[in-house]
């Protein structure tokens, strides 16, 4: 994704790996260069063609299989030879990058205190993305739930510039993970930007699946920041958890629980 030099994204945009790294890792021939909708169409058309032609027409079978492969793998050899790609950068590298900015009407120092000097708070703001346990001495254990297994990594907070920013980085573990939190004073309050980047083994497929399973990192981070905003501005976090509801919903919930 192109980042405009003046945009807030530019401030903290630091991907782990650029495309040269991927190429040097020898993954170039399999990287994703087809956009999601195109993959969907390819896979659908390929599958259909394959079932219609199997055992009847050799060219149809080959074409069907090729289209299905293109859709499922997300890689197109033709695009590659033309040096073309329709996939967003994060899919190409298998990296998930999340940036959220929210303005909170509270002094920067108070917010910094809240985020940085209370280990449980850092764990809490990260909790939508991972299960975080403070280990003391600015180290945290991150348990990131993937669709097939849970990945563990140890993260260390560093580079603290009070009261404007701090960063964190993977010290060890299966998931590469790093991020930053920045606080900027504006006429409307304090602008809080949190950026999180992580790379899980299995790359784009895993992140696509984690989206399907409902853990959309953009949304969960946004929700967490909005809750902090509400807490600072109103003294409480709005909720409907535990309010009455009718039979229709109880039935749905029960079905979900037994499924």
């Amino acid at each position, binding site marked *: 994704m192109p980042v405009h030099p003046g945009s807030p994204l530019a401030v903290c945009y630091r991907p782990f790996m650029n495309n040269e790294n991927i190429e040097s890792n020898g993954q170039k021939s399999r990287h994703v260069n087809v956009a999601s909708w195109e993959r969907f169409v390819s896979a659908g058309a390929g599958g259909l063609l394959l079932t219609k032609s199997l055992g009847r027409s050799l060219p149809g079978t080959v074409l069907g299989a090729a289209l299905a492969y293109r859709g499922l793998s997300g890689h197109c050899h033709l695009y590659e030879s033309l040096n073309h790609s329709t996939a967003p950068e994060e899919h190409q590298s298998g990296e998930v990058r999340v940036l959220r900015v929210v303005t909170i009407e509270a002094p920067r120092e108070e917010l910094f205190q809240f985020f940085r000097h209370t280990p449980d708070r850092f764990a809490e703001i990260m909790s939508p993305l991972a299960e975080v346990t403070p280990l003391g001495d600015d180290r945290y254990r991150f348990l990131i739930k993937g669709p097939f297994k849970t990945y563990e990594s140890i993260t260390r907070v560093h580079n603290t510039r009070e009261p404007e920013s701090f960063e964190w980085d993977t010290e060890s573990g299966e998931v590469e993970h790093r991020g930053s939190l920045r606080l900027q004073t504006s006429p409307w309050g304090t602008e809080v930007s949190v950026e999180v980047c992580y790379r899980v083994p299995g790359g784009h497929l895993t992140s696509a699946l984690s989206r399907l399973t409902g853990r959309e990192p953009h949304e969960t981070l946004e929700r967490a920041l909005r809750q902090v905003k509400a807490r600072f*501005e*109103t003294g409480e976090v709005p909720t409907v958890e535990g309010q009455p509801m*009718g039979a229709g919903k109880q*039935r749905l919930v029960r079905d979900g629980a037994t499924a």
Partner: protein
Amino acid sequence: MKALVFHGKMDVRVETVPDPQLLNPKDAIVQVTRTAICGSDLHLYHGLMPALEPGDILGHEFTGVVLEVGSKVRHLKKGDRVVVPFTISCGNCFHCKKHEYSLCDNSNTNPTLQEAAYGASTAGLYGYTHMLGGYAGGQAEFVRVPFAEVGCLKIPDQVSDERALFLSDIFPTGFQAVENAGVGEGDTVAVWGCGPVGLFAIKSAQMFGPEKVIAIDGVDERLELARKIGAVVVDYRTENPLTRIPELTGGRGADCCIDAVGMESHGFGPGAIYDKAKHLLRLQTDRPNVLRQAIQTCRKGGTVSIPGVYGGLIDKLNLGSAFGKGLTFKMGQTHVQKYMKPLLEKIVNGEIDPTFLITHRDSLLDAAEAYRRFSDKEDGCIKVVLDPLMASRRVLEAVEATALPVAP
């Protein structure tokens, strides 16, 4: 408690659900004394609003008595009679401080859902989809009122629940529409839709000394009521507003046009048929027939004000006409808390009796039938007020009537 629960399109039922409880320190629990069905509840009933789920309790116009308050509620106490605005607002954020209560930053419990659809999230509302917070509504015996000090206005002793009830939504909504339209002395105001909001817009417009208020609708009893309160009526079934409004305004067009219909406009002619077809095919969520007429018949440099609810996408909007004539648009959910106190004063002073449009009074237990009747515009139904205590009151009356005299 008993509450009106959404089950699906055209399927609402009164059923027993758990009583609400205090969930946050600024909450209050209110026992509902009167609750109404709003025209915008029909958008939910017709299954047109996204993110409404079976089991959701509807209703966003209600008065009640405070039963219980949270630890951080100072200015309310048990026994206070209150009217509750339909917008849930924190009172502390940037927008609430500017009295833009319906744009509250903090009260929506599901901000990400609305941000994805609208680009920003707005205030949570009672009983109005999970996109707007998923709060349980007021067509029930009891309701939890979050941010209760911002969300409750005490009703003075001399004002009945019924007269205060419409401060929760439709009176401020009609009034804000008029304020947004910039109605001034000598103006001609055209109001589309003579439902409750349209009728309050007519009444509110008259407070600003306009030369004429034109009311457009196609339902007899609504037109009749609009005529009764002093509007010049246009029945779109027999007269074309696109030609009739210029006739009534010396060819200039109306200074202020108010679309109090919103996304489910009926209308007439090819435009209406086109909208209906696209709507049925789900190619557009909202039918903008009224909005097109408002733009077309507004005078050059005039203002179009939209209190009617729109939810999604519209098609074939005559923006060229609006641009060419240099129109101003103002719209949005009502900042109810901003208007409640001044409008309550008007009720206390006797300037307006908001009960003029009530056509039906029912028990909460009959709410499902009331929805059907309101939706079908049957039996002259304009505004339904539900009384959660009506059933018990009737039982008491019956017991008193049949009780045998006790021997001394």
